[in-house]
């Protein structure tokens, strides 16, 4: 009886199921299959000719003991973590400043100019900063202005000592407006009468910011933190565009190394093992951060 009912329902929704087929098929082929294929390959030695052979955890051992993976992990953490911290505080400053601008035109210009970089491709942002940091670029132009005739232009992109800072700074430059937009989304939900009431009670504007605006953004800060932690180990585009041979020791990160090994050098087993580890690490770190921030309480 029950089965018959179910069958009837299934029949009634028949057209919907048929329409759903492409969606399901897509996910099977382009999401689940690559995931499983990657895990399988990570236990294999892939040969250009003939069948792949099963090698157990050999690839994982190679990744764990390989110094290039250690270096890439350190680079990912420093550049990724640094970018997050810089971007977080810059975004917060932008949002707070934005909320204090009363002039409509000034306000929307400020928001536009800080948000535009987020919309751009890393090809654009990378190309822009590589040119600006080049010997004939804008930064050297400014230095020349201050130093006068004794000036010799620097090739900033070719110096190891600047490399990580450049990646962190340009990452924050691109993303600060995005964080600010997220913070603004909660700031605009504040009832303006709250500020008014605080003012009547004698609170100064900075006290209102401290005790009204900032507490409202705290849940968004947690969301932003969780989102960013997931992305820290997975920054490909920026390094792909901005890295060059002279600075690769300082900035080549895990995702780029995986790409290099798997796509350019055909070390498929090793690369998929590393990718699987990054996937697991990302999930673990995210869980830890969620717990630390009591994240799941936000949307209860």
């Amino acid at each position: 009886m029950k089965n018959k009912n179910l069958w009837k329902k299934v029949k009634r929704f028949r057209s919907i199921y048929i329409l759903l087929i492409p969606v399901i098929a897509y996910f099977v082929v382009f999401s689940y299959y690559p995931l499983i294929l990657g895990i399988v390959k990570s236990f294999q030695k892939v040969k250009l000719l003939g069948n792949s052979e099963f090698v157990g955890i050999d690839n994982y051992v190679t990744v764990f003991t390989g110094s290039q993976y250690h270096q890439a992990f350190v680079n990912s953490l420093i550049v990724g973590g640094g970018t997050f911290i810089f971007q977080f505080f810059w975004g917060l400053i932008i949002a707070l400043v934005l909320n204090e601008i009363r002039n409509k035109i000034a306000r929307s210009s400020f928001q536009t100019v800080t948000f535009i970089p987020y919309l751009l491709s890393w090809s654009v942002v990378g190309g822009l900063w590589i040119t600006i940091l080049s010997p004939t670029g804008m930064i050297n132009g400014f230095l020349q202005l201050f130093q006068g005739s004794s000036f010799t232009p620097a090739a900033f992109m070719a110096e190891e000592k600047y490399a990580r800072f450049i990646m962190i700074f340009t990452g924050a430059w691109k993303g600060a407006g995005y964080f600010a937009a997220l913070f603004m989304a909660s700031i605009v939900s504040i009832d303006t009468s709250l500020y008014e009431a605080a003012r009547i009670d004698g609170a100064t504007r900075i006290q209102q910011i401290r005790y009204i605006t900032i507490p409202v953004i705290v849940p968004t800060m947690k969301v932003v933190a969780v989102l960013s932690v997931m992305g820290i180990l997975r920054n490909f585009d920026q390094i792909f565009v901005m890295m060059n041979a002279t600075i690769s020791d300082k900035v080549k990160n895990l995702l780029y190394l995986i790409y290099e090994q798997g796509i350019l050098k055909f070390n498929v087993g090793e690369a998929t093992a590393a990718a699987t580890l990054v996937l697991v690490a990302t999930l673990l770190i995210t869980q830890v951060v969620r717990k630390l921030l009591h994240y799941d309480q936000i949307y209860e």
Partner: protein
Amino acid sequence: MKRSKLSNNLRGGWAVLFVVLAVITAVIMFLPMWNVIVVGTSSTLDSGSSGLKLWWHEFSLEGFEYVFEVTKLARPFLNSLFVTTVGTVIQVFLAALAGYVLIQKELPFRNAISSFIMLTMMIPGDLTLISVYQLNKQLNLLNSYTGLILNGLISGFSIMMMRNYFQTVPYTLEEAARIDGSGEMGIFVKIYMPISLPGLATVFFMEYVARWNSIMLPATLVTDESLYTLPVMLKAMIMSTESTSGAQVAPNNAIMAAIIITTIPLLLIYIFAQKFLLNGISMGAVKE
């Protein structure tokens, strides 16, 4: 009237600090973009000389001539436009369809389908890149428009966004249509789609920007220069200036011109669809 407004502003040292922060941020954000515009419309000679270039020494479109005649940027531009537009339109359509399925309360196996889709959001595309490359090789999709469109055609994220929009449609509307004799597809097309137009627009513009900017997939799937998308071409231009191989080096004004061309569609979207973009961005963060 003005005074009462002003009295709730920052004062003293704090006001100075905020103004300073605002000015520094605005300058750091704006100057690089301004520099792009000036250098991109300067002569090749000027753009390659040292010194500050924040105003035109001589206005010139040499950079644009270079990117169209030497780099042949028209092709990548059209490639990007085609791949992005087709991919995004299909994505929005399928996301709406799947989102609608997920709000059918009586649909058998709804929860299973929903989990199946949600789980794909946990699979990061950048980490399965190598297998995705091999999959495309197996399917003969490398170096093809089909491959560029097909990869990333549907995302769990846009499906969830559409579902959330559909959930806000009052059930009574659906019921009324049902009484009038509309079938499932009729209800979907006549009731849900029109009400959820802002949702469709949000998904469309979010996806359009993401696809337009994507580098990793096209750079992996395409080696044939005639199929390069704009970001891949731009990256190749930037790289050639660093190589010492003697390959044709693009002058600064040409690179900046290419940057301007790549950016224009995004600026148009920002100007005309800002509301949807900002909306989608905050929704995306909250739903995560």
